[in-house]
């Protein structure tokens, strides 16, 4: 009986994967695009369950707001502004079959290589051991020898900012460039300043009242996820996307004019720049202290190392703060939530105002 009990997670894992395959199939062949978006959201829910069963709560916390909350909302806005139905007349069956065959062959080859990378014995099930690098990270993430440790019980956040900080730095800059690109496409477009009746727009009073109660609670949860990022599952990315859900709620339930009262685009850009400056500060604060005191220090250094005896305190008054991890989580939270707030506000501007601007440029 106890063996059966141990099998339950694996059983749920395989059933969830099969169910996700069905929703992917429905999402791809559906002609009604709104329905396709909803099927893809169902698939994301199944994937979140898979992530949970694979014991990575950090990914669950970031994946549910992104793929179940934000991406379907964005795609529904885009579908509402463009074509509702997909026109599939004229796709010849032979082209379709040839491409499908090529895709199947490519996928089988890549899947075979993946299997090979896993084990020479063709055992798909993972072994009892993990790689040496991962074992090193797990052993040193909270260790009372500060020369090797990141002093954080949360090994994922420790890897994100301390062990592999340069990766995160450049990934943040990729996100910065994507948002700058979207801002460049939406230049000269502004939220129209017009008088409006709040009661006449958006959903019913029940939805509005529920949202008024929900939004502060979501914000509290988001800030809590971000500030406890070095202790519990969570961090700046997870808290940021959770807080960005409130912007989409305000736009959907009320209207873009109502949301623009709280989030001005220029203010959001300013707060985002403050967040990015905070990330740069978290990367260089040890170096600055080293310059000021004339000691040796490195960029992206958190705790003291053997030849650089300088570092941030890992605790203040008995509370673990893990050095620069707290600064990084707070700044990343600000940068992520404000970046997505800008994009949401720009995306939900009515199409008539946008067309006016574009025609003005052409003429």
């Amino acid at each position, binding site marked *: 009986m106890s063996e059966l009990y141990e099998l339950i997670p694996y059983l749920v894992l395989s059933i969830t994967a099969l169910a996700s395959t069905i929703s*992917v199939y429905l999402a*791809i062949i559906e002609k009604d695009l709104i329905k396709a978006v909803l099927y893809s959201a169902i698939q994301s829910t199944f994937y979140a369950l898979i992530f949970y069963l694979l014991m990575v709560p950090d990914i669950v916390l970031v*994946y549910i707001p992104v793929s179940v909350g934000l991406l379907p909302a*964005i795609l529904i806005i885009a579908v509402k502004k*463009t074509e509702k139905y997909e026109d599939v007349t004229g796709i010849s069956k032979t082209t379709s079959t040839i491409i499908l065959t090529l895709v199947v062959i490519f996928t089988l080859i890549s899947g075979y290589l993946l299997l090979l990378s896993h084990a020479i014995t063709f055992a798909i099930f993972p072994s009892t051991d993990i790689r040496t690098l991962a074992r090193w990270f797990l052993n040193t993430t*909270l260790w009372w020898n500060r020369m090797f440790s990141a002093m954080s019980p949360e090994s994922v956040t420790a890897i*994100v900012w301390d062990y592999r900080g340069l990766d995160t730095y450049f990934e943040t800059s990729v996100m910065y460039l994507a948002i700058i690109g979207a801002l460049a496409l939406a230049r000269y477009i502004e939220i129209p300043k017009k008088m409006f009746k709040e009661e006449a727009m958006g959903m019913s009073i029940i939805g509005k009242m529920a949202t008024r109660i929900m939004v502060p609670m979501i914000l509290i949860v988001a800030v809590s996820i971000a500030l406890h990022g070095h202790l519990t599952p969570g961090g700046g990315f997870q808290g940021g996307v959770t807080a960005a859900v409130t912007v989409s709620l305000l736009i959907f339930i009320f209207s873009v004019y109502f949301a623009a009262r709280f989030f001005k685009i220029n203010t959001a850009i300013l707060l985002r720049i403050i967040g990015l400056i905070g990330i740069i500060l978290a990367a260089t604060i040890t170096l600055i202290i080293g310059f000021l005191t004339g000691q040796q220090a490195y960029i992206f250094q958190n705790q003291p190392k053997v030849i650089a005896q300088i570092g941030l305190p890992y605790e203040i008054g008995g509370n673990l703060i893990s050095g620069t991890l707290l600064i990084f989580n707070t700044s990343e939270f600000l940068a992520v939530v404000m970046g997505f707030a800008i994009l949401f506000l720009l995306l939900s501007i009515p199409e008539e105002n946008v*067309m006016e601007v574009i025609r003005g440029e052409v003429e």
Partner: protein
Amino acid sequence: MIDVRTYLFTVTYVAILVNIVISLYGVFVRPNVIKKIIALSIFGDSIYVYSILIGFRKAEPYPVIPIMTTWQPSSEYISQFASTAVDPVPPALVLTGVVIGLAVMLFLVFLALQTYRLFGTLDIRKIVRMRG
């Protein structure tokens, strides 16, 4: 005699592989740009699931999350933790990948909207025929 856990894990692997095939079909064949973006996001998510599957491990009775539950660990606790926790490197990479993926998807949606404003259609076959 094949272990039941290995069998169930293989089912998961193959199901995600089929997801990749279907989503690549959507990217290559379906004409609507928004449908292509949906398929692309499903493709990326399936790759994320694969990365996490690589980091999974076998432990009795079940592996634990890579987060310590005490903040003054003894050396026995650390060795026990390191022998049962899953690999923390793939979650750290996927974590940033999800958020940056969302920003890139938003940029693609902006491009698609701009295309619709200038061409009046999102059918990729008609856009190709128009030549700017």
